[in-house]
């Protein structure tokens, strides 16, 4: 079966982000970007399913600016067979991304859609669920275990109450959580090989998607800063400080 994996280019998790002084957003120019870490986990899972012979072809897909091609190349180095790039220079909100990704999924007649549970830039946690909704497909979010059995998937979900297991009919959308796997490190030969793999350029128009009204971003600001507290010399001092604050 074909698996589609969406991968998002995001500011690297080790970057200390800065809010622009005019409040128009965060600084992204000249800042290190990489694949959204949750999408790496989705990519890894697809590759493992292919290694097990469950998945026969992996298609990586992204929606965004030209530079997102780097993220697709990483996905191809991971083991995606080919990629689809929905080029869009403007800001893309989750519903628009979901419409584009749903269109690609339908066009490719894939059986499995995998993506991270959220991206670490906008932290929306929406796109996977929206794709499932738009296509009236089952969804299993926050997956920590995926077992494919024929035309069904058994997915264990990491939810507040514990670990819930759902059985879904395929095709289905699965969003993945941290516990699912540990992504492999990319090897140089794979990175080289990835350069030769095909990327199919698409656009919102070519997929018949129009960007809707969406949310208007009024401003971006810094959160209230934490101030440096006091250094205590001994455990006794610490204990009495905590007692004074009524914390212990």
């Amino acid at each position, binding site marked *: 079966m074909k698996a589609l994996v969406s991968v998002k280019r995001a500011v690297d*998790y*080790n970057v*200390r*982000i800065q*809010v622009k002084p005019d409040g128009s957003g*965060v600084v992204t120019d000249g800042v290190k970007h990489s694949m959204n870490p*949750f999408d790496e986990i989705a990519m890894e899972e697809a590759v493992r399913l292919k290694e097990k012979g469950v998945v026969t072809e992996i298609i990586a897909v992204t929606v965004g600016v030209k530079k997102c091609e780097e993220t697709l190349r990483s996905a191809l180095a991971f083991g995606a067979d080919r990629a689809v790039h929905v080029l869009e220079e403007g800001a893309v*909100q*989750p*519903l628009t991304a979901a419409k584009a990704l749903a269109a690609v999924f339908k066009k490719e007649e894939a059986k499995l859609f995998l993506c991270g549970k959220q991206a670490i*830039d906008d*932290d*929306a*946690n929406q*796109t996977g*669920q*929206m*794709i*499932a*909704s738009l296509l*009236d*497909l*089952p*969804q*299993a979010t926050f997956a*920590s275990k995926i077992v494919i059995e024929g035309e069904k998937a058994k997915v264990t979900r*990491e939810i*507040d*109450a*514990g670990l*819930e*297991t*759902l059985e*879904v*009919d395929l095709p289905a959308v699965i969003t993945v959580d*941290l516990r699912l796997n*540990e992504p492999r490190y990319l090897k140089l030969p794979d990175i080289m090989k990835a350069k030769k793999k095909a990327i199919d350029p698409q656009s919102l128009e070519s997929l018949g998607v129009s960007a809707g009204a969406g*949310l*208007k*971003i*009024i*401003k*971006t*600001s*810094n*959160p209230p800063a934490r101030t*440096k*507290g*006091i*250094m*205590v*010399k*001994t*455990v*006794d001092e*610490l*204990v009495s400080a*905590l007692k004074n*604050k009524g*914390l212990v």
Partner: protein
Amino acid sequence: MSKILIIADIHGGKLGAAVYKTVAAAGPIGGEIHIAVFAVDGAAAAAEAAKVEGVSKVLQIDNPANEHEMAAVLTPQIVALAKDYTHVLFAGNTFGKDIAPRVAAKLDVQQVSDIMAVHSATSFDRPIYAGNAICTVEAPAAPCIVATVRLASFQAVGDSGSASVESVSISAEIPTHTRFVSLEAASSERPELQSATRVVSGGRALGSEEKFKIIYNFADKIGAGVGASRAAVDSGYCPNDMQVGQTGKIIAPDLYFAIGISGAIQHLAGIKDAGTIVAINKDEDAPIFEVADFGLVGDLFQLVPELQEKL
């Protein structure tokens, strides 16, 4: 005037605690607040919901299909109700995060995730980059606003209200493509990381899985949840799901102990909303001390047992 529908999460027939905070967020939007209780027999939960302060009506939607709160099952029912409301709100827990986007996409509206402050009926603050920046957004009012509420940002309302309960039957086609198999409840011995009022986390300085036990012991003594830095997880001292930080869990306990954690950006992103941060580290220049309310420099293997004994 707004008309707000809050979708309650139900645990074992009882109303989930998150509802009280979600109602707190709905208050400043202004308008009538209703709670929808989806269950097999929601009478008990609906009676509890009727007491949530600020709520004027509770809709009780009983259906055998509603036993397990699955997104695919609840969405068509919520969509059927949504046409009468200006806002549909969910708690920003795994229940709300799972269902809200499915509802929003069906209504063709862009969802607002993790409301942390309400400016008006259509304008909200929400965190991005793990709370390292705050985004103020304006959502189109029509057809309705679908949002989740960041629970750590609101104080629960009380339970001395008296709303009416109305039994509602909804004719919506409910899919059968998603089936519940099992629920393995979280181990109840230790508080769950994201809802614990106290959390103790260990970092790379612990040195091994064996030595990490000092963290569990201390946490158990003070009734705390246990977390870890990414470095500790990557080094194999503890499982992935304990990771606190931007790519792990984002937490806001009243009291947080960072033990042997240097304070990488990615870890700090996960704890910036903690009430009081205590850091113990042998390196006095560790960045964790820049955000800690109380810092103690020294050998954690001596200091933690001493602290455990004296608390």
